């Protein structure tokens, strides 16, 4: 690093920003409480960098999930100033001088501090059979099925989901009624419904009050999605499909 860059870095580090972090330690807290930490206000730091600074330098007892630091793994989703965000892609520069309030994702039980219990989602995800279903073929599937660019384009957008659960946290229906199948699970079901290689039929799984018909189309899931999956679109499209199939029982997809 050049001397100038080092000087700028040292000056920047002299400024701090306050993180108000929700703490929930089940052995001592009846409900979450906020704890404040002052961390260096660096222009190139994401909220996750701030949390790691707290963990490494200020308070090793703070618990949170993270892994890749590049918006791929979907582990570091948290509520930042009330919005569900990937903390690795949410930078201090968005928040001026702060403070920044960091809470666990809404809608999920809190295990500890910023760590939530996602078992409910994992059950729902498996429920929609998010894999290629082939009729009359034994596993493992070994045959190759080529696709045209158009066939790939038909589902590609929905395949970008990283299971970060920001859409669940943004969805008021899920937060109020956890029985709702939820945005990501339905979008991933659509990812396979629209795949030319898939021969499965998820109609009975999706055409339910607690599945696509539970969605009231608030649209916030799409706004929250960091991968531009557009779960709201997936759900509305399947509503149309389900409605047509209900009228024309012989039609598929």
């Amino acid at each position: 690093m050049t001397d100038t860059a080092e000087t700028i870095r040292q000056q920047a580090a002299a400024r701090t920003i306050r993180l108000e972090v929700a703490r929930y330690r089940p052995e001592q807290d009846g409900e979450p409480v906020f704890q404040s930490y002052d961390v260096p206000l660096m222009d190139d730091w994401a909220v996750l960098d701030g949390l790691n600074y707290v963990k490494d330098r200020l308070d090793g007892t703070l618990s949170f999930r993270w892994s890749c630091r590049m918006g791929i793994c979907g582990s570091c989703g948290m509520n930042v100033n009330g919005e569900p965000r990937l903390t690795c892609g949410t930078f201090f520069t968005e928040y001026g001088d702060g403070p920044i309030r960091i809470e666990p994702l809404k809608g999920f039980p809190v295990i500890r501090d910023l760590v939530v219990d996602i078992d409910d989602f994992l059950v729902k995800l498996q429920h929609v059979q998010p894999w290629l279903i082939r009729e009359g073929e034994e596993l493992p599937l070994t045959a190759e099925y080529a696709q045209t660019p158009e066939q790939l384009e038909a589902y590609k957008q929905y395949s970008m989901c990283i299971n970060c659960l920001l859409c669940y946290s943004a969805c008021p229906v899920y937060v109020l009624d956890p029985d709702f199948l939820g945005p990501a699970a339905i979008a991933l079901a659509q990812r396979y419904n629209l795949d030319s290689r898939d021969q499965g039929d998820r109609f009975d799984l999706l055409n339910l009050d607690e599945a696509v018909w539970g969605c009231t189309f608030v649209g916030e899931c799409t706004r929250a999605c960091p991968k531009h999956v557009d779960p709201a679109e997936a759900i509305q499209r399947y509503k149309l499909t389900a409605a047509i199939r209900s009228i024309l029982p012989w039609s598929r997809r």
Partner: protein
Amino acid sequence: MTTYHAKRDHLWFLRNRTYTVFVARELTSVFVAWTIVYLMLVIDAGGPPSFAGEPWMIAINVVAFAATAFHAITFLNLAPKATVVRLDGWRVPAFMIQGGNHSAWLVVSGIVAFLVLKGV
């Protein structure tokens, strides 16, 4: 395992703009229903009903008109989410689907207005 379950937030619809617009869109359905009822009264009476000129009725209908317009515009703007149209691989952009819906809405409104007002 002891976990913390957050209490239900009864003011969730005030927490961000999208939630508020959604609730407003749902609530304005009441005025859409009223507009249909009023339209049927107009058709049944063969013209504006006797109470149409009352100040309170004018006030209700002004609010109903604004609410119905808000409901229709926000509803039609959502149409591209449900209707993905591809023409030879090219996805028709959202603004074209919205524009088509709004145009059709204006045409239908014009026809209804013509039919209702021609007897006035």
